[in-house]
């Protein structure tokens, strides 16, 4: 696998959405290719960052109560 092909599958690789054999081919290329390794690491940092920044918010206790009350009325 060459650099261009690896980059095409970049997010699928980081999302683990490829078959084990393709995952392995990319992993091998990336470990042997410093530029690809750097750019893959950068994208990984970015995804981890987005996920960490967005998880906190959840439904309020009021909303939960409103829904439970409504189900009782059904």
């Amino acid at each position, binding site marked *: 696998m060459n650099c261009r092909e690896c980059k095409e599958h970049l*997010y*699928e690789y980081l*999302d683990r*959405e490829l078959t084990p054999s393709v995952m392995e081919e990319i992993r091998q290329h990336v470990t042997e290719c410093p530029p690809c390794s*750097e*750019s893959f*690491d*950068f*994208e990984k*940092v*970015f*995804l981890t*960052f*987005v*996920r960490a*920044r*967005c*998880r*906190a*918010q*959840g*439904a*309020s206790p*009021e*909303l*939960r109560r*409103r*829904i*439970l009350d*409504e*189900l*009782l*009325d*059904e």
Partner: protein
Amino acid sequence: MTPPIPPGSPPPATPPSPPPPASSPADADKRASFEREALIHLDSLYRVALRLTGNPAEADDLVQETMLKAYRAWHQFERGTNAKGWLLTILRHAFINEYRRRTRHPETVDIDAIEPFSVFEEIQDDDPQGTFFDRIVDDEVLRAIDALPEQFRETVVLSDVEGMSYEEIARVLEVPVGTVKSRLFRARRLLQQQLYEYAVGMGYIKGNAT
């Protein structure tokens, strides 16, 4: 004809007025299974609703409506399958049909024409490890997600906020998996680009672009 009840006799065998109507064993079972399998996804539904509507009050209403619709259709849900995906599909339909008209207007941008550049290529000499991301606060990330075109926004939220697989996202959005892949690719690059431009504007990182 009911024979008249002589005064002083005990009340009829069946309890006179069963408390709330929903107290039959079947209703109680339904409610228990709904709470167990559907209500546990409340936080996820709220997060997605908030990003779709862009407004906490609207998000509350959308989630409440979704849960009510889901409860009424609970007999249609195939037990043991993905309840989160099922609920999100209901939520998305409710949003498209009732909320989008009031909150945000349907998309007019051509998302296929959006070709964001690679931020990594801009910064590989200055900050290849992307340390500038650490300085960007939660609110700014959420604002950047909210600024994405709707089709990009919903894909990013289902993937990066809710951690769903491409297959699950494709089912909720009712598009092929290939569409999920290409939207996710461009959506993430666009988000990255917006955050990069913000970081440059704030002086967190030196800009090379211009």
